[in-house]
């Protein structure tokens, strides 16, 4: 393999060395249970306090508004179950949420809760008017993601949260793809609850948090000891809590510079792919988009095969093909923005991170068109399309090295 490009940062990221370093003492000598009385535990208790303060500051919250959880999914579940079990009522969410929200909403429906799933437009955007129209007298919670994990669309959360506020409804946002990636200030956004997951921004897998505005009082999801002020039981994963805070600190400090670079690389990728591969479209909003997200649908081929070929070329990416979604259908997000099953199967998501380089972009642009051509040449669907004039034979762009 002449080159290796990890370009699936929306799936997970590598723990940053500085983060691992910050965690190591808590995986070795500082192992005292923070709830214990002896001095040895002061170190771990303080470490959690510090981490909580750091995280709070970085998103404009107060320390006691941060509840550490074991992952983004737990945060989402806690938000939804916690509010709705407390004050039974109607939930409004969208058709493009992550399964952590969507499957929770479905489970809530089975328990008898009413749920409205808002449509999105062709770019994946939720309209504040549509939200307002869906509100019922018994609406208790609105949950709309900050940024979509597949197509990278960034939602107008401030406007959406304002609608919720006007109607005095609790507003939760799944910001798992946003925290550490785009500026997040809970007060500026006006959200009441916000979910995040560490492994999306250089912290380990298995740690997340839920921001809960003071006065908003969801029931716990995990009952037990008094950890996290009684909101989330379980002996604290101190090492990962410290790691999450460190990772967020780094991510926020470098955000502007990283995003300038990511945006440039992302645009180069999008432009290059659309230029070099015919019968290909960009999914998600072109401008209201996460800096590192590229999502295209490449017709006449299937996503899993494409990923495997890319993998063989040393490129790690992902797809919304049914073969990779864990269900009979391709990505619900791609269907929600109006793609047919056929087109959705051929989707490719490339998500860049701070460690990617311009050479990586060049390399992807060098390899991808040939792989697509190869798979099309093997595809009876392409053969058909050529025969019935739906598509035209093409040469690979000479611009490709």
């Amino acid at each position, binding site marked *: 393999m002449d080159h290796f490009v990890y370009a699936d940062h929306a799936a997970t990221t590598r723990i940053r060395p500085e983060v691992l370093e910050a965690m190591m003492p808590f995986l070795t000598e500082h192992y005292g249970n923070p709830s214990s009385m002896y001095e040895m535990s002061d170190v771990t208790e303080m470490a959690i306090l510090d981490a909580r303060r750091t995280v709070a500051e970085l998103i404009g919250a107060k320390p006691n508004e941060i509840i550490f959880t074991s992952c983004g999914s737990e945060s989402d579940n806690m938000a939804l179950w916690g509010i709705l079990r407390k004050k039974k009522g109607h939930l409004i969410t969208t058709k493009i949420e992550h399964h952590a929200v969507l499957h929770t909403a479905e489970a809530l429906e089975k328990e008898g809760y009413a749920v409205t799933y808002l449509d999105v437009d062709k770019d994946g955007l939720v309209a504040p008017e549509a939200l307002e129209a869906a509100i019922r007298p018994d609406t208790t919670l609105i949950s709309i993601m900050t940024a979509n994990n597949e197509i990278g669309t960034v939602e107008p959360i401030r406007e959406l949260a304002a609608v919720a506020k006007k109607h005095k409804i609790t507003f939760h946002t799944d910001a798992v793809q946003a925290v550490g990636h785009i500026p997040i200030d809970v007060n500026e956004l006006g959200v009441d609850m916000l979910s995040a997951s560490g492994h999306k921004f250089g912290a380990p897998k298995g740690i997340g948090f839920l921001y809960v505005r003071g006065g908003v009082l969801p029931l716990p999801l995990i009952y037990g000891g008094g950890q996290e002020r009684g909101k989330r039981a379980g002996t604290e994963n101190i090492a990962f809590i410290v790691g999450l805070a460190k990772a967020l600190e780094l991510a926020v400090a470098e955000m502007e510079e990283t995003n300038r670079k990511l945006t440039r690389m992302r645009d180069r990728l999008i432009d290059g792919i659309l230029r070099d591969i015919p019968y290909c479209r960009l999914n998600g909003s072109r401008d209201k988009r996460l800096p590192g997200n590229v999502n295209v649908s490449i017709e006449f081929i*299937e996503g899993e095969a494409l990923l495997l070929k890319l993998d063989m070329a040393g490129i790690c990416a992902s797809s919304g093909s*049914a073969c990779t979604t864990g269900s*009979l259908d391709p990505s619900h997000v791609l269907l929600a923005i109006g793609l047919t099953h056929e087109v959705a199967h051929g989707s490719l998501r490339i998500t860049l991170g701070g460690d990617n380089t311009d050479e990586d972009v060049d390399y992807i642009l060098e390899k991808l068109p040939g792989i697509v051509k190869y798979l099309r040449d093997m595809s009876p669907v392409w053969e058909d399309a050529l025969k019935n004039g739906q598509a035209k034979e093409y040469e690979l762009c000479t611009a490709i090295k």
Partner: protein
Amino acid sequence: MYSDKVKDHFEHPRNVGEIPDADGVGLVGNQKCGDIMKMYLKIENDVIVDVKFKTYGCGAAIATSSMATEMVKGKTVQEALQITNKAVMEALDGLPPVKVHCSVLAEEAIKAALEDYYKKQGKEPDFKATGCSHCCRKDEA
């Protein structure tokens, strides 16, 4: 997730292509579900002398197509009809449970091509390709 054999057949698929004057062509699967196999057979004196395929689908779909073409080549029609999805899977050293349906698709592609061959010969086939009713499924991460 895939065996080395599957990977090899995906990476170097055997018999990709078309046979313009094929004696039997089978098309199974459904693009909506994400898997289509097209198999071309050249048959002389009841023996499959050449075979080509084109597949739209996942890695397992391409590998099973490739393996299936290898398995039918040189076989008589009757022998080819005996090839089961299990045999294809075994030849590939197994498939992940969620990909078993791809091997069914391969078996069906052979059957469909032979059905077409029978029909072109004016014979009534005593078997029937059912295509594949399952879609691609990945149950477990």
